[in-house]
């Protein structure tokens, strides 16, 4: 079973986790039947396109606005990005493509 990867919650973020029935055509994340917003998009992509028909799309939009504003009030620039444990797990040192990269840590986000 592929779990639904839509972010739920407002203060506490988590993944929905129900059985996914489709993939969002815009960002590719797995979406369950409850979270399938307008046009088969995931709530966050629907919100980014100003389509708030589905309640979870409206919730995603409100959460985004809220996080952005709180990041400003708190000077906590990272609160805005709202990465959860699921997002972070992919960036643990052991998850790198090539274990040989570990010894001197390729820090850069991009290469130029």
């Amino acid at each position, binding site marked *: 079973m592929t779990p639904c990867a839509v972010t*739920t*919650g*407002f*203060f*506490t973020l*988590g993944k929905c986790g129900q059985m996914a029935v489709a993939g969002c055509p815009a960002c590719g994340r797995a979406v369950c039947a409850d979270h399938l917003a307008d046009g088969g998009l995931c709530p966050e992509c629907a919100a980014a396109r100003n389509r708030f028909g589905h309640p979870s799309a409206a*919730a995603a939009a*409100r*959460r985004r606005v*809220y996080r952005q*504003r*709180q990041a400003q*009030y*708190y*000077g*906590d620039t990272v*609160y805005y990005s709202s990465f*959860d*444990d699921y997002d972070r797990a992919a960036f643990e040192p052991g998850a790198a493509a090539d274990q040989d990269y570990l010894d001197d840590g390729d820090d850069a986000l991009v290469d130029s």
Partner: protein
Amino acid sequence: MFWRKQKAAIAGFHPLHQALILERGFAATHPAAEWAALAASLHRHTGLIRRSKWALPPRTMDVILPLLTEICEDLGPKGVLAVTADLRGIHVPAKSHPARSIPVRPPARSATETWSIDPWLRLHAGLRDGSGLDVLIVDRQRLRRVTKRGSSGKTKVKRKTQITQLIKVRRRLPRGVAGVRPQTAPPAWIGVTLRDGERRSVLAAAKLLRLPQSGDEQLDRILTVATETFRWTR
């Protein structure tokens, strides 16, 4: 009889919605689904009710409803949210302490001071991560009434009010979670204290010297204070 259709409409509303209309407040504990039903009922209000006596109390649609919606997002399938809302306003006699006279000097003849305390929203939610969230919002008004006598002997009564708002949020962290102090400090107007015990609590409190002027601002302030308690855990 009069207002027959609107009375019938009210009878069809959610019980808490009816309580808001008729008693201007409610106290209830429900899971997220029930609060969603209340929201659906409230959204039908403007289309059906026109009599001003039965209008929804202020702060219902622009503060309480959005706040409940957001907190319900975090409730999870088993969590419940308890809300005590009293939207009668601060000018209800029961909310005022007795007037107290305060010392004066001429030309004032006498002065009284009255404190009114209006805890208009109190809520408790058991969130899905195992933490408990409490929110308390209190408006406090100081009313001073001064009687003055001018040189011509004319007596004037002046009144001054000062109104402040307290927002207190407490989050009891889940069992066994210690939390980490966030790297950046909260805004200066929010105070944070920790209370250790069987479960650690993070308390955030703010005293606003000026009442928020719009529903959006009010909601924003409440959420900002609540945010601090959630920055302690990831």
